[in-house]
């Protein structure tokens, strides 16, 4: 009990300090600018850059092969753009936003998402002080690489298992969204291990903050992705193999 009180007062103090230092950053959802120690910021950037490169190569291939795909690429980018601007209230009493990467990963595979995600993250870091340049590597890895890759695996597995197309779309988008915040929790846990419970304990705490809030939002994102997927199918914008 005493420990809890101490923690509460500490976190109160922390919040107070934070309000003094960064008054305008009160509504953001990715890892904030400067909130990863330099070593970790750099490490995640180094991991993210090759993914970005692979994505750019893949993007050029797709556009060179069939320039009509540009339209679908724009649509996928726009979908990520919109969904990451929606701050949705969750049952935990805090707000968070979807990632919107599910659609792009289904239509183009995980490589391309790294580029689309990076563009959105850059926009938010530069104009909205939401996320940040130093943490863009980490946020990129969670939202534009690891989340989508796991979503892609789920999509492939669900298709192989013979699930209905829309169920597979739903699962892919939902898992990619949840995975993003799962990875974010681990990134924070690794950078800020709990003095008593270590990395695992700290990650679990971040998970209890992010992932619980994220569950209903991930479900909403899954449903929205099914909706747009249906519309694309209706307009015969999707190649026959994925209908």
């Amino acid at each position, binding site marked *: 009990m005493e420990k809890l009180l101490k923690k509460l007062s500490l976190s109160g103090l922390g919040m107070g300090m934070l309000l003094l230092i960064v008054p305008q950053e009160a*509504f953001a959802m990715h890892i904030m600018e400067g909130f990863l120690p330099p070593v970790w910021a750099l490490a995640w950037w180094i991991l993210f850059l090759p993914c970005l490169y692979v994505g750019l190569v893949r993007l050029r291939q797709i556009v060179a092969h069939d320039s009509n795909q540009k339209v679908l690429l724009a649509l996928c980018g726009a979908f990520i753009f919109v969904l990451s601007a929606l701050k949705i209230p969750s049952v935990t009493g805090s707000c968070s936003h979807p990632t919107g990467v599910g659609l792009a990963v289904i239509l183009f595979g995980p490589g391309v998402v790294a580029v689309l995600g990076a563009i959105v993250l850059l926009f938010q870091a530069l104009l909205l002080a939401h996320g940040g340049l130093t943490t863009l590597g980490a946020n990129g890895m969670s939202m534009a690489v690891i989340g989508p890759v796991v979503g892609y695996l789920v999509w492939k597995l669900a298709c192989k298992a013979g699930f209905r197309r829309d169920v597979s779309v739903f699962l892919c988008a939902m898992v990619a969204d949840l995975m993003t915040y799962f990875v974010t929790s681990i990134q924070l846990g690794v950078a800020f291990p709990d003095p008593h419970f270590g990395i695992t304990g700290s990650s679990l705490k971040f998970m209890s903050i992010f992932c619980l809030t994220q569950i209903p939002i991930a479900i909403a994102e899954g449903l929205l992705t099914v909706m747009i997927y249906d519309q694309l199918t209706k307009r015969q914008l999707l190649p026959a193999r994925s209908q």
Partner: protein
Amino acid sequence: MKKTLILLALVVGLMIVPFFVPHGGEYGGSDDQAESQILVVAPHYKPWFQPLYEPASSEIESLLFTLQGSIGTAVIFYILGFYRGRREDHAGD
């Protein structure tokens, strides 16, 4: 069409339900909580880099967020509308 409406209703439901669930929260961002959690674990941590630009007020921030949403929505519905129109053109051929 019916399916779209049901899905839409579910999404709206998911957004409204939180307001009827007692939780004591005040709908801040989950990042705020994460930040205070960081300061619990590392009380002396100071952010070492500041954003190059911050929206001058929460009004301007919401303007930029709305802009982000609107631009994205415009692109999505332009494309959907364009292809719908094209399909109807073909249907008339």
